[in-house]
């Protein structure tokens, strides 16, 4: 009961002590007291409580019924009196004289009977008596008004001047109280921190218990395994030895048995000979005897001379061959050694973790092995065709400590095989399974000359950008705002199987469109974008349909029929080129609705301008068949002549002002093809026709000259009236 020691520290002022430390612990929301599940706390509290109760009994003054939770005298105005701290082995360090609740507010001290728990204090009336005496033990009869910080005792001001505190730092009691309160607070803080740490630690302990169990389990398993191995080896040895002995015995016995048989044979022969000799010996007839005896004698002599060794052909004893236990010894020695790791598990490729020149390879341990480092091996996967008969290409290696590695300097759109080994002090693990990772492709390249657009759609074409096939393409659109900045991607079209895509757009806007190539490793970087304006219709000429005499400018928008007379042999025709009419097709986006374009012509140009089906006869003349419609300009000696040809037929039309710029409006839905003098906004003629398929703009020159195509022009208002 340590508190008791403190409380009883000085004689004669027990009741004074009571005044300050009265009752059991209490005050503010009992932070410390309420720490859950901590037995010490309760223990301490009860110790405090017991101490207090003891005090109560000692108390001489009248006290109100004691509360069990009150720690400080709440109605006292006087400063706290702190006893000098007597260290004990069981107590917590620091916090001089701190017991019980943390109190942070002076109000607690100044309240008169107004704690949360409400019970009144022991000190009725808040007397200011309470002069404590330090261990130094001066008894003062006058109330102290100052406090000596050096001696930590209250004293009288008068004492300061003359008494033992003459040279000490002496301050007003209230100030002293404040200072000491600060110390108290600091002490309490520190204690709280400690408490926090302890709590953390305690909660971790539970986890640690589990870990210990696991580790134990693992070790046990290891041990068992090792010893099993050892036992197995030993029993193997045993069996081997026994078998060997068995064999040896068999051999010996056989040899001996053979010997026995031979002896037997020899015996028989010898016995026979003796009998024979005896018979000969008994023969009365001396002559016959002499005849027969010679060979018998000879044979007897031979036999006697045959000194067969009467020796054992094999020894009775068995040799003691030393058993080779070296490997068992080794196993015993390695029982305590860390096992080499087992093969790691290589992960399959995570989508979007590769770039066109790198791949992020990840793996994991099969079990909780200790590993010092990993070796990642890889080589490119080649086609089987290049493989046959050759060794696998050399594998590259990277050593890493983590379970992942970003491998760089790879080729785009290529497959690589990866496998990994783990190494620790004992050795190297077997290799993991092989996993194939793929780098993303290089970005595609958009072909602007093959793209087309109209107010509601765009057709984009590109090159793959990769030698090997990719899985698909993704097209990304973003609208370019009025101020010119591109907004974030607003639309993505995925799983485009071929190198072209038709996408719906809003009219009158600017778009930035780019394409990515996608394979199992993820999408490539974006291609260079193409800017599409959904104003008017835009298309290019299909150069491979052009008659050889027609040459096309580099921007694909102007065509020339030159004067030069190319010899027929010098011309290159194909199935797709016009052969008679010096014509070319344009590639209009295959979208219905209205399309408008303009063609600039010269005064003397004899031209044909109109539309035709894609498969219009290449050896026909535009307008001369049912698959094409055109406006034709012919120059006669007297005047300009204009025809609007389809199927070889034209209405009779006279036009007084030669159009220098012809506007063509194709309206699929209304089934109309209209021609205008764009400079005059004058309507020239309209074909009424039902187009069965998509048509393409067509152009021809009937005499040397040029036509210039103008695209991306919104159909003017006057074209609506026809």
């Amino acid at each position, binding site marked *: 009961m340590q508190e008791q020691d403190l409380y009883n520290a000085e004689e004669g002022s027990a009741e004074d002590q009571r005044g300050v430390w009265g009752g059991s612990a209490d005050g503010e929301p009992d932070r410390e007291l309420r720490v859950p599940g901590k037995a010490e706390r309760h223990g301490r509290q009860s110790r405090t409580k017991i101490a207090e109760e003891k005090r109560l009994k000692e108390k001489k003054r009248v006290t109100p019924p004691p509360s069990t939770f009150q720690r400080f005298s709440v109605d006292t105005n006087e400063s706290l009196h702190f006893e000098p701290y007597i260290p004990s082995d069981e107590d917590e360090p620091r916090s001089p004289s701190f017991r019980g609740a943390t109190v942070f507010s002076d109000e607690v001290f100044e309240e008169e009977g107004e704690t949360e728990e409400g019970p009144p204090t022991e000190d009725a009336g808040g007397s200011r008596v309470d002069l404590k005496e330090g261990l130094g033990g001066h008894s003062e009869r006058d109330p102290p008004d100052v406090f000596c910080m050096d001696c930590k005792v209250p004293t009288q001001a008068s004492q300061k001047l003359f008494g033992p505190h003459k040279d000490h730092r002496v301050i007003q009691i209230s100030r002293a109280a404040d200072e000491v309160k600060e110390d108290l607070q600091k002490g309490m803080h520190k204690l709280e921190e400690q408490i926090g740490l302890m709590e953390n630690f305690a909660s971790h302990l539970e986890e640690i218990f589990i870990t210990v169990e696991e580790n134990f389990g693992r070790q046990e398993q290891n041990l068992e395994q090792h010893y099993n191995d050892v036992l197995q080896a030993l029993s193997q040895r045993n069996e081997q030895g026994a078998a060997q002995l068995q064999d040896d015995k068999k051999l010996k016995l056989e040899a001996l048995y053979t010997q026995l048989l031979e002896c037997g044979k020899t015996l028989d022969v010898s016995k026979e000979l003796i009998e024979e000799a005896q018979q000969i010996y008994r023969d009365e007839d001396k002559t016959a005897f002499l005849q027969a005896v010679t060979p018998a004698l000879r044979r007897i002599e031979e036999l006697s001379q045959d000194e067969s060794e009467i020796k054992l052909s094999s020894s009775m004893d068995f040799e003691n061959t030393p058993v080779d236990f070296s490997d068992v010894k080794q196993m015993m020695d390695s029982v305590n050694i860390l096992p080499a790791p087992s093969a790691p598990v290589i992960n399959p490729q995570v989508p979007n973790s590769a770039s066109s020149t790198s791949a992020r390879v990840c793996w994991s341990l099969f079990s909780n092995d200790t590993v010092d480092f990993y070796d990642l091996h890889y080589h490119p996967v080649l086609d089987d065709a290049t493989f046959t008969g050759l060794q696998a290409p050399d594998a590259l290696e990277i050593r890493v400590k983590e379970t992942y590695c970003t491998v760089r300097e790879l080729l785009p759109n290529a497959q690589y095989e990866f496998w990994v080994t783990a190494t620790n002090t004992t050795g190297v693990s077997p290799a993991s399974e092989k996993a194939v990772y793929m780098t993303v492709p290089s970005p595609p390249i958009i072909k602007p000359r093959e793209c087309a657009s109209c107010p509601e759609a765009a057709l984009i074409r590109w090159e793959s950008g990769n030698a090997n096939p990719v899985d698909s393409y993704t097209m990304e659109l973003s609208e370019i705002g009025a101020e010119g900045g591109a907004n974030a991607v607003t639309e993505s079209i995925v799983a485009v199987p071929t190198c072209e895509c038709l996408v719906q757009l809003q009219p009158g806007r600017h778009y930035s469109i780019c394409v990515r190539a996608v394979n199992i490793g993820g999408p490539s970087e974006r291609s260079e974008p193409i800017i599409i304006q959904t104003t008017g219709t835009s298309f290019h000429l299909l150069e491979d349909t052009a008659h050889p005499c027609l040459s096309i400018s580099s921007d694909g928008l102007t065509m020339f029929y030159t004067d030069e007379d190319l010899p027929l042999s010098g011309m290159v025709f194909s199935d797709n080129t016009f052969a008679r009419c010096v014509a070319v097709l344009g590639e209009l986006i295959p979208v219905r609705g209205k399309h408008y374009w303009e063609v600039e012509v010269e005064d003397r140009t004899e031209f044909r301008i109109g539309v035709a089906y894609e498969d219009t006869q290449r050896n026909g003349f535009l307008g001369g068949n049912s698959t094409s419609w055109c406006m034709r300009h012919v120059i006669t000696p007297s*005047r300009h002549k204009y025809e609007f040809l389809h199927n070889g037929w034209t*209405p*009779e*039309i*006279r*036009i*007084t*002002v030669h159009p220098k710029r012809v506007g063509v409006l194709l309206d699929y839905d209304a089934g109309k093809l209209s021609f205008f*003098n764009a400079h*005059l*906004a*004058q*309507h*020239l*003629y309209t074909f009424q026709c039902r187009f069965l398929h998509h048509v393409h703009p067509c152009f021809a020159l009937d005499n040397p000259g040029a036509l210039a195509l103008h695209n991306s022009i919104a159909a003017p*208002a*006057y074209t609506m*009236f*026809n």
Partner: protein
Amino acid sequence: MALTQVSSNKCCGGFQKVFEHDSTELKCRMKFAIYLPPKAESEKCPVLYWLSGLTCTEQNFITKAGSQQAASEHGLIIVAPDTSPRGCNIEGEEESWDFGTGAGFYVNATEDPWKQNYRMYSYVTEELPRLISAHFPADPEKMSISGHSMGGHGALICALSNPGKYKTYDATTLVGSYSGPQLDILIDQGRDDQFLSAGQLLPDNLIAACTEKKIPVVFRLQQGYDHSYFFVFSFINDHIKHHAKYLNA
């Protein structure tokens, strides 16, 4: 001038009406037909003046040409005056079908006894437009003129003589001396028109003159069509659209 409504028929969502009034130019009572499209109920509309051919009155066009549909669609008022002063009792006015009554030729006569009354040019270009603007929801800035046969001729001379007055015009040989804002002339000619084959119509001359003067003309020779209102009916839509293009711009 007071207008008296002679008839009114609802047609294509609007009204085909005929009015009568005392003409100051022609010094007699004149009738004219006016088609008011549905749009005229709420807004001012452009006006297309239609001049009819020989022997016609204000009735022929409105009953035979089928112009009301297109006029309603494009929101145009079509005014079709009579072709000459009536009831003036001038000697000789009934003698031939192509001179006198029903044959005003849209010119102002310069000789007696005709010059008092036969002032169709002034009637069409001055009195009638004033009348229409005063009494009907007509946009005075947007006028155009067209016609058939003698009326075609009339339209041309009115337009060519009044550069800038009419937004679109039809052909005339006055082309040669025309200098004014750009014209855009549409002419349809029936191929089987007896007047054409008789040589009374000389479109080639007109075309040549327009080509010379660079006046934009599209002249269409319509296979199988004659001079009648069936022909007018067949192409009136194209013509009204042609006018609407400028009147509604």
